[in-house]
């Protein structure tokens, strides 16, 4: 059975019964919250748009692919996985596209396929989170957010590799 398909319906029915029992005006509450939700997506649109436009220009130039192929890193690291790692913190759309290419070219059960799956599942698009979260509440001075976020992404790539390697050794 697909367990995860039950999570959301179960949460919602539990919540609705609880709201009924607590005698709160759930409908009014929903509308109040929904208005805030609308406000958020309106507020973050310029931030999301600016990043998507910049990353898609960057992506369509094939800069990363050119660099990863010409640097002759092939012996050290596969150019496709390197491309994936470079895009991962910058653009969710681009990294998803590269992930699909990796699945197609090497198969999802190959070492590269497994490694890309682990990275995709265990980290998020750092730059997107930074721009959206700070953008939504109007923070201008973001201090060390990007440096710390990117450092943790690199650590995540290394951890993922070590854990997959240990797992396959068994």
């Amino acid at each position: 059975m697909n367990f995860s398909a039950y999570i959301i319906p179960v949460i919602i029915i539990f919540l609705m019964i609880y709201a009924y029992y607590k005698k709160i005006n759930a409908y009014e509450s929903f509308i109040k919250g929904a208005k805030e939700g609308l406000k958020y997506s309106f507020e973050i649109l310029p931030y999301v748009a600016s990043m998507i436009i910049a990353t898609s220009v960057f992506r369509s130039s094939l800069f990363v692919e050119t660099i990863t192929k010409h640097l002759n890193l092939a012996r050290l690291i596969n150019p496709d996985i390197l491309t994936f790692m470079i895009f991962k913190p910058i653009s969710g759309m681009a990294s998803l596209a590269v992930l699909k290419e990796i699945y197609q070219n090497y198969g999802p059960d190959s070492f590269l396929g497994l490694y890309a799956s682990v990275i995709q599942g265990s980290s998020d698009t750092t730059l997107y989170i930074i721009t959206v979260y700070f953008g939504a509440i109007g923070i201008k001075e973001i201090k060390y957010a990007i440096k710390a976020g990117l450092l943790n992404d690199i650590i995540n790539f290394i951890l993922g590799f070590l854990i997959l390697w240990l797992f396959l050794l068994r």
Partner: protein
Amino acid sequence: MVNKIWLLLFIIGIFFALHNNRIVEINNALLEAPQDAVKLIISLTGLYIFWSGILQIAKDCGLIEKFAKKIYFITKLIYPELPKDHAVHGYLASNMAANMLGLGSVATPLGIKAMEEMKKLNQNKDSASRSMLTLILINSSCLTLLPTTIISLRKVYGSNEPTKVIPLIIITSFLSTLTAILIDRLFYFLNKKKFK
């Protein structure tokens, strides 16, 4: 820093497009990307409206507060700066829970809610507070228990064992959340002066 990255993406992008003879692709990207952004936001708007509404119900029944109290021993450790019994703990706890269940679109409005409360606590300044940076780092390392999207994607691409990666993702994301907390502490102590 966002400014520099943003400018570099354009400069490098257009320069290399000329070099790689991909000027048509650049024009297409400039034409399509703004529309992609609006499409993405429209699809997210529905989710944000729905989940923010559901969360408001949970908040008004007192469920979020109850959950926050149960999990306070964890949020206290991660966010030592925040005052006890403040509404922000409820959003932080629920943001964490949504991330673990792989519900990214639920986690975002909750995270923004938490950021709003933190901004109030920071006298509405337009510079980031310590706890905001912690929240950002924790969210970008995303502790996951149920990586639903990746499993279905693996299935689509013909994996024999789509769920094989679940334990690996759980362990990796758990460890990288721990390192995120350590990095957060490290950067905070190195930049303590900036928070005055």
